[in-house]
């Protein structure tokens, strides 16, 4: 599963702490840019910049309502990140189950 080197996928997008804060804020529901500016205590251009990155990788979706633009979370692209960690966890689970067997034998030898 090859990935681009720049911030063009979910994995890199969530690596930035400020963007994770935005995602955390959106977990609780739709927010306007102003809501996010207020909640995070960060200047509006900074919030907008991060929202743009998150939109590009499909992690947030925008909705226009009058003069306001609302953002909501779309967690589907995070699935890829999650899968990697779960695959790696599966590898270690298998190792450790075998290790359990080895340990049972060692205990009996003692």
């Amino acid at each position, binding site marked *: 599963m090859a990935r681009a080197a720049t911030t063009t996928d979910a994995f890199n997008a969530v690596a930035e702490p400020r963007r994770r804060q935005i995602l955390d804020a959106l977990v609780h529901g739709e927010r306007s840019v102003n809501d996010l500016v207020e909640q995070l205590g960060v200047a509006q251009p900074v919030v907008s910049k991060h929202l743009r990155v998150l939109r590009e990788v499909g992690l947030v979706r925008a909705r226009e309502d009058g003069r306001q633009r609302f953002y909501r979370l779309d967690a589907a692209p995070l699935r890829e990140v999650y899968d*990697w*960690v779960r695959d*790696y966890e599966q*590898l270690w689970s*298998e190792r450790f189950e075998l*290790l359990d067997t*080895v340990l*049972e034998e060692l205990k009996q030898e003692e």
Partner: protein
Amino acid sequence: MTETSGRRATVTTPTDTQILITREFDAPRHLVYRAYTEPELIRRWWHANRGEIQSIEIDLRVGGLWKYAMKANGGFEFSFHGQYREIVPDERLVSTETFSGAPGVEALDTTTFTEKDGGTYLEILVQHQTQESRDAHLESGMEAGLQDALSLLEQAVRELA
């Protein structure tokens, strides 16, 4: 053998450059340490049923080298190697780790064995220098063609039970 949450391996990424692997074992920590540091014992679990171990080399002293080589079921050959930086018998191992698929990338592994309720709590903290190498490390399991081996694995585990 009942499986509790502590008996499951958990993998988390505490920071952008770290991987943390934890698991509890129903055995005293000096045995877990042995199974972790003696080549004949490592041979029996490190393969995770996903291939054949070709060699396990361990020179267990500060500055000593280690290397685990394996051929995955798909035919992919790979190895991990590194150097021991700190050794506290039964308690703590610190070593560097490099994957043959990414020769220039070195991680620092801190493995801690802690006594817990008559058993052992094992913690492996993998510290990478960059997020890219951490991500590549997480991916390495897949590169080794591990998914193909899954059904085989399930069978092997059932036989163990």
